[in-house]
């Protein structure tokens, strides 16, 4: 376990292969003077589970939107290994963001549909993605018939269905109750072990970030910036026993300390 300044983290990264995605001094200024993000640099490698942890307003969502291409950096650049195309990304928002007029299966079909693929042709992939989140029996249900946790699972299945290189998750479980959240945390790791995707995950929760991620990027606000990186070197798979281990507690302490530093007290 290490708590280091970001400058040092870059050195350890240098030994690894070329990053899947790299942010290079990315800044974002809104309305001429609101610095939402200042000089953010981050390398994300194949198989990483990176959490962005920080107080409200530190630019976590802004960073994700920049990576997703929904807005453009005011300065700095974002590089994708081998260029980017529409199939590279899966996205999960804080709300499930499902189309209420469409069934679960049709919702999961959406990324394919927008690329012109017929439902019948994609059905095996859709079923597989829904099976991964344990909802294969709810293909024909409408979102309103599902609980909050189940809707979130559909949203995750939709992000997975195209086998994207990178999945962005913006506080996906923040609105859920503690029990559902634990369950979904476990399931997310199980799912990741199965398909080996790369994830950038935004959260406010120290515990969630330690449990899930291999690296925690701690950010501070005004201006939004990266101030620490905490490596969580505990091996996967992680289960309930990890949650009660001393290793976990130690990582939580380190991440908490970094977060307090970010909040400034």
């Amino acid at each position, binding site marked *: 376990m290490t708590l280091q300044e970001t400058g040092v983290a870059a050195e350890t990264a240098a030994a690894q292969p070329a990053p899947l995605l790299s942010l290079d001094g990315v800044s974002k200024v809104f309305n001429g003077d609101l610095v939402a993000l200042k000089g953010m640099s981050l390398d994300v490698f194949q198989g990483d589970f990176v959490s962005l942890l920080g107080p409200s307003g530190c630019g976590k969502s802004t960073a994700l939107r920049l990576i997703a291409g929904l807005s453009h950096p005011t300065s700095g650049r974002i590089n994708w290994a081998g260029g980017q195309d529409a199939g590279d990304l899966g996205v999960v928002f804080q709300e499930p963001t499902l*189309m209420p007029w469409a069934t679960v299966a049709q919702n999961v079909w959406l990324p394919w549909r927008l690329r012109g693929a017929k439902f019948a042709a994609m059905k095996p992939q859709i079923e597989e993605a829904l099976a991964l989140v344990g909802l294969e029996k709810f293909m024909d249900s409408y979102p309103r018939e599902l609980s909050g946790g189940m809707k979130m699972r559909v949203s995750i299945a939709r992000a997975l269905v195209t086998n994207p290189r990178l999945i962005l998750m913006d506080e996906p479980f923040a609105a859920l109750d503690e029990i559902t959240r634990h369950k979904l945390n476990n399931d997310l790791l199980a799912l990741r072990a199965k398909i080996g995707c790369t994830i950038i995950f935004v959260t406010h929760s120290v515990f969630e970030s330690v449990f899930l991620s291999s690296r925690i990027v701690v950010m501070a606000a005004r201006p939004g910036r990266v101030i620490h990186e905490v490596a969580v070197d505990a091996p996967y798979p992680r289960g309930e026993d990890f949650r009660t281990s001393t290793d976990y507690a130690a990582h939580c302490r380190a991440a908490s300390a970094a977060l307090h530093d970010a909040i400034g007290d």
Partner: protein
Amino acid sequence: MAIAETAPTAAAAPIIDAEEARRARNRRRERLGRWLMPLIVLVVMIFLWDRICVWNNIPHYILPRPGLVAETLWVDRLILFKALLITLRTTLLALLVAVIGGVGLAVLFTQSRLFEMSFYPYAVILQVTPIVAIAPLIFIYIQSKLIGMLLCAWIVAFFPVLSNTTLGLNSADHNLRDLFSIYGATRWQKLRYLQLPSALPYFLGGLRIAGGLALIGAVVAEYVAGTGGVGSGLAFTILESSYRLNIPRVFAALILIAAMGVVIFTVLSLFSHLLLRKWHESALKREG
């Protein structure tokens, strides 16, 4: 460590208790009342109407007794039915054109800011100018009575469709919009798969209002246009019968117009319910 199970308490208590049974009774009473109360009011009103005619000796060419109106409905049924069909045709055609025009304009408005900036003010002006004031001009410039009447009814009916649909197209969930952008959706795909379904409940709300307005437009147009070429609808029948002091027929036609309005509204409500019942809050029944 053992976790004790809680002992099952009051195993004998019935699942539906007296409270719940009482609530169920109240619900049944409420459902019955929804039909029964207006019906009672109707019967009382008709009875009073009849008594007022008798007590005051009002002649039938001023205020006919309800029985006479009912008789006229039956005796004149052929004339009245023909008139009803004509008014109904104008109304439905106008509604159809209002839907096509309203939705079409709404889509154009959301696709092109320039188009919206240029034409929206005129749509509003057309809407706020009373149709009775425009109608005479329309029949001066437009030779075909049918087209003139359609135009009148359309002017009144299209605006709620236009404004509701525009609102609906613009109110698609912003996260879903972002998602569509991330997946590289084209403008057309966004419209087809996101904006139009989002607009559906709004459109249907506008449609219900437009149904009533189309009828009003058709009636106004008949008053202004007279009969030439199109045959006489219900509104023209009212006009003509009142000249001849055939007041029972005026009442009969009036009742038919009102009934037609109610039927149009009910059918549109039903249609809207069928389209939305699977997913939209407005059409969902929740257990209380």
